[in-house]
């Protein structure tokens, strides 16, 4: 039987907590019992995806009523699922273009990075707010 981990984290909607959520992801990657790949790379990637997704939620969740960000991290049957909930206006995942080195934009690499690391990325509207859902199969 493969291991099952479920973390449900609620944090203030502030960038000072990006390091904390990243550390939680890194620690989880190092603690996995069954993973045959490059563990340090996985730790960095989970840290990065959590950091990018939470920063994105802070940026798009500009409603004064929402002061928290909720993140769930689930590992079940070798599949890692990270969900980041925001209360804001939302954005269109498909209008985020890949970074263009020629024009050297300062912004817009976050979603590109998440897509490069994770197998499947979706952004859905909920009754209240949105959820950015990211999945990756671990071997």
């Amino acid at each position, binding site marked *: 039987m493969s291991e099952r981990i479920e973390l449900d984290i609620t944090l203030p909607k502030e*960038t000072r907590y990006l390091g904390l959520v990243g550390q939680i992801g890194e620690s989880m990657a190092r603690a996995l019992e069954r993973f045959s790949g490059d563990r340090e790379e996985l730790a*960095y990637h989970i840290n990065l995806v959590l*950091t990018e997704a939470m920063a994105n939620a*802070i940026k798009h969740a500009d409603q004064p009523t929402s002061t928290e960000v909720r993140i769930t991290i689930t590992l079940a049957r070798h599949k890692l699922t990270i969900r980041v909930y925001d209360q804001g206006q939302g954005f269109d995942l498909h209008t985020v273009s890949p970074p263009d*080195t020629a024009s050297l934009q300062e912004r817009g*690499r*976050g979603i590109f*990075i998440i897509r490069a690391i994770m197998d499947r990325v979706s952004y859905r509207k909920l009754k209240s707010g949105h959820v950015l859902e990211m999945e990756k199969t671990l071997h």
Partner: protein
Amino acid sequence: MNIQINEQGAVVLISVGEERLDAHNSGDLKTRLLSLFEGGKNNMVINLEGVRFVDSSGLGALVSGFKNASARNGSLKLAGLQPQVQSMFELTRLHRVFEIFPSPEEAIASFQV
């Protein structure tokens, strides 16, 4: 943000003393670089030896500095990238944009050729 700035002749060496360069502190770095440009400095080396983690906004602050230096006929070079940080530049293809040196000494010497 913990940052050390040393002038070495015509080159300014900026050493980032934070383990993480992310959306929490990248704005600080961008502001510090802008004040150096406004003070007439346009040749810079950013020493990232102490940085273990960089996200897209950290990369954005470095791109901002690179563009400002280039616009002033100067140059912003990077040094001391940890392997995981280097891989971020490769992932976003920014390793083709920046001049990257193993050590700050080599980056500074490259201005004197």
